[in-house]
């Protein structure tokens, strides 16, 4: 598989870019933040997204979607990263769709996938509980009760959790935190008794929630995949999410870098353009190289997801780790090279810095993935 986009993929990118630039430049996010918008994203825009086929990108055609792959999802995520547009694309179109596709029964798929494709259903994946991403440490209790289960525990950083119509929740039906066995995924109605959702206003003005579960009852037919065997399913989903977030970080890095290079060619000090100073030229060049390398690693990982999800672990770890480091560097250099301007809220650069920090943390930061890679390579 050549590591360049096909013509169809480039066309998809252009149409996503067109829509996003037009309807959701960074000022869109700024407006949502300043108006303390309740949902934190625009439902109208999501409808427009659905009409263009983006919400059903991964949904198979027989369920009303376009049946495309993870490379295509990454293409859209990258464009989202360029303007930081808040949207349920990651949570619903990528994660929930993949969860249903990979773990769902026919009944579960036909109940939810067409609605995801037409933009009427929003969903969220609830995994993390502690301070850092540690999926194996999941401890939310899912005790057997009658013909179903009863969930008790809490989740942090549930992306789009406060607007979801459907929650996908990882819980422990067996084993102890740290063990692979005993994890199970559930489809939970956020309106069910005992579910308490608190929207967390985060540093990047995007949407996430803390969700508490207090003896929430779920039926056996709300289990996604197999009881106790959910880790493999979850791990695959998380890898998909990591690939998507890495793509977002590539878009974000490239955008912030592009703005920085433009500034280097405009701003004058000491009677010269600051871009003439070699100290800055070399740092810009290094960053360029970093971004190019990261872009290749991320594309490689997305192709690996499409080829064989279960074999993609190492490529994903490389991609997410690199993307996190590169994005961090890109936003830091972006602010630094803009000088005082870079520190002002009025200027957009800060938005990228904040989003990069959240993306770094989502589904494991660079250190987490370096650790995973070391284990995969047994040292």
């Amino acid at each position, binding site marked *: 598989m*050549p*590591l*360049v986009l096909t013509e169809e993929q480039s066309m998809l990118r252009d149409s996503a870019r067109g829509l996003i630039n037009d309807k959701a430049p960074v000022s869109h996010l700024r407006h949502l933040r300043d108006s303390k918008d309740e949902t934190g994203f625009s439902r109208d825009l999501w409808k427009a997204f659905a009409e263009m086929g983006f919400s059903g990108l991964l949904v198979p055609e027989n369920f009303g979607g376009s049946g495309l792959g993870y490379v295509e999802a990454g293409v859209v995520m990258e464009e989202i990263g360029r303007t930081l547009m808040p949207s349920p694309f990651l949570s619903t179109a990528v994660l929930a769709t993949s969860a249903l596709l990979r773990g769902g029964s026919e009944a579960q798929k036909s109940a939810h996938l067409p609605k995801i494709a037409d933009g009427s259903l929003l969903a969220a994946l609830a995994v993390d509980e502690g301070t850092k991403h540690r999926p194996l440490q999941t401890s939310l209790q899912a005790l057997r009760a009658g013909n179903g289960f009863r969930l008790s525990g809490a989740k942090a950083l549930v992306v789009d959790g406060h607007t979801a119509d459907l929650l996908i929740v990882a819980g422990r039906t067996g084993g102890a935190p740290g063990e692979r066995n005993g994890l199970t995924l559930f489809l939970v109605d956020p309106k069910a008794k005992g579910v308490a959702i608190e929207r967390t206003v985060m540093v990047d003005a995007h949407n996430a929630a803390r969700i508490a579960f207090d003896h929430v009852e779920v039926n056996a037919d709300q289990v996604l995949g197999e009881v106790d065997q959910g880790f493999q399913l979850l791990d695959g989903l998380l890898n998909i999410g990591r690939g998507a977030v890495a793509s977002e970080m590539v878009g974000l890095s490239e955008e912030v870098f592009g703005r920085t*290079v433009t500034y*280097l*060619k405009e701003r004058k000090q000491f009677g*010269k*353009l600051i*871009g*003439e100073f*070699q100290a800055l*030229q*070399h740092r*810009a*060049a*290094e960053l*360029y*190289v970093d971004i*190019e*390398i*990261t*872009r*290749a*690693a991320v*594309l*490689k990982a997305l192709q690996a997801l499409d080829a064989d999800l279960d074999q993609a672990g*190492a*490529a994903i*770890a*490389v*991609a997410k*780790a*690199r993307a996190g480091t590169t994005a961090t560097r890109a936003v830091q250099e972006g602010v630094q090279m803009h000088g005082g301007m870079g520190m002002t809220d009025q200027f957009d650069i800060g938005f990228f810095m904040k989003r990069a920090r959240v993306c770094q943390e989502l589904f494991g930061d660079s250190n987490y*993935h*370096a*650790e995973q*890679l*070391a*284990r995969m*390579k*047994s*040292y």
Partner: protein
Amino acid sequence: MSDLETFRRETRAWLEANCPPEMRRPMTSENDTYWGGRNAKFSSEPQRVWFERMRDKGWTVPDWPKEYGGGGLDRAEHKVLREEMTAMGARSPLSSFGIWMLGPALLKYGNEAQKKEHLPKIAAGLIRWCQGYSEPNAGSDLASLQTRAESDGDDYIINGQKIWTSYANYADWIFCLVRTDPTAKKHDGISFILFDMASKGVSTKPILLISGYSPFCETFFDNVRVPKSHVVGTVNRGWDVAKYLLQHERAMISGTGERGIGRPLGQVAADSLGSDDAGRLDDAMLRSQIAQFDIDEAAFAAVAERAIDLAKAGQSHPAFSSAMKYYGTELNKRRHEILMSAGGIDALEWESERSRGGARPRAWLRTKANSIEGGTSEVMLGIVAKRILDLPGA
């Protein structure tokens, strides 16, 4: 089955049948590679067998046209061959500046007579070339070179000095930058010329390096007579040829082909340092450095692959080889720093059988030149800044 899959299957089978097992192991020293030339000697029988079989297939230069001794493979086939050789750990049958640098420049800028004369000899390893670019006062600022070529009828008379000429003392011919018009602006009076190192007036003096080896020389030209027909490309336009050649040199030095061969760093470190009960390397900081390295190396492998795919799709930037050269060489230096650290006290031994003559520390020292030779990292970053990012200032 597609043609390419058939080609892959046949290639794999041929390599399996023809590559001696000894040629599938990582090299143990720089001398372990065959350089060809008039005075060439094989260091072992398997080395000879492997070279000759590859040469007979045209696979010392798989992507050159067959009429010039090449294999005539297209890009996709060439990539398959490289992949299959890497998968097997097969060594390159011939190391050669003729292949890496001069050949591509001749294919683009040489006239038919020059191509017919030189390319087949490069492919067959008959002539060993060296590169006469740098001078004592023209390193990074290569275009300020002073070696003069003065017209004398059908010949030039060449006078001057080169430095850092790798293997000049073993080379048969040199490709050389000379000043043919001293009055022109510095880039406009340079010509690219070829001549025999056995010509009267050429002498070399080896320079000892920190690795204990002397892989290069000072090279002196004292009234060396060279036919004008040996100029490649247009007289006074040699800078174009020089730059084109440098792109290939940089791609080669970035080491994109060689990576991934040899034992993984994590394992090398575990062998010498041991692991804890959970299987983790018994040096947490080093383990973390290795993991970071592995991430960057895997990502670099991806960008190397992408660079080829981009070129194929006609989407690559001509200066991208500078980006690759910069990162690839810095990465290689990191690799060897980690190897030294993993080797600990054992890696400090300079001589002795056990240390294979101090192979590890010598290789470590050698890598420090990677970010200097072929243009320094600073110069590469300058090229990226100006040519790719279009930042202002000369």
